[in-house]
């Protein structure tokens, strides 16, 4: 078999697995999230108490994880679309995957202090 034709176990497969796992994760979050938002129809107190959970330091960290999942799914989703619609897409799919990972890393690093600001202030004082 010529080199580079084996899909299984290579980058193409792992990015597909990661795309699938992140998609499911976001879907389950959305279910819970529409329920928590619906509490605005119950009372301001019920909503505020539930939203306080989002401000717990551990949950705040989970939010950073959610952002990691969505950013990967979004960037890799654009890569999938490019592979399908751009005639040179299939040839550059691997380059595009490294680009996706680089952009993902930059955005994750840049947003870290902002997303965890609440936790940093709660733990270390303002």
């Amino acid at each position, binding site marked *: 078999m010529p080199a580079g034709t084996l899909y299984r176990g290579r980058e193409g497969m792992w990015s597909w697995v990661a795309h*699938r796992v992140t*998609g*499911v994760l*976001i*879907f389950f979050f*959305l*279910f819970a999230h*529409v*329920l928590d*938002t*619906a509490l*605005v*129809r119950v*009372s*301001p*107190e019920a*909503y*505020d108490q539930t*939203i306080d959970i*989002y*401000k717990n330091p551990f949950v*705040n960290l989970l*939010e950073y994880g959610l*952002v990691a999942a*969505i*950013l990967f799914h*979004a960037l890799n*989703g*654009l890569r*999938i*679309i490019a*592979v*399908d*619609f*751009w*005639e040179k*897409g*299939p040839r550059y799919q691997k380059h595009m995957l490294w680009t996706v990972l680089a952009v993902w890393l930059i955005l994750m690093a840049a*947003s870290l202090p*902002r*997303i965890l*600001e*609440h936790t940093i*202030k709660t733990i270390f004082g303002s």
Partner: protein
Amino acid sequence: MSATIENAPKIHGGGPSIESPRSKRSPRSTKTNFELYGWLFMRLSGILLVVLVLGHLLIQLVLDGGVSRIGFAFVAGRWSSPFWQSWDLIMLWLAELHGVNGLRTIINDYAERDQTRFWLKALLYTSALIVLFLGTLVIFTFDPNIGS
């Protein structure tokens, strides 16, 4: 654009299973182009969701204090604007339909018994109806004075 045709599910082909190369066309699930439209929808909604969801996360978690400032008063302020109401409504429908169609594919891939598939999909579609109904209702009936 030539790659489009090759990668899309074939017109009148489709169905979730992959047949062996020379088997006869199955008479089932070849009547509509549902899989093709589903495939296109995943890509179109995906492009819109990049803006809608990443914009949402930027507002909710990054800008101007992030998660610290979220509460009933914050939502009341945002949903006083038809622009953000529409944003949330479109995001709700696109994300939910995109996610449901994605999960439908995944169920087709892993659940092999017809019965298992049926029940998993019944659960999936029921959850989608709840989310779409409740989410839409909440946006249209939001009352900023509910507490007083």
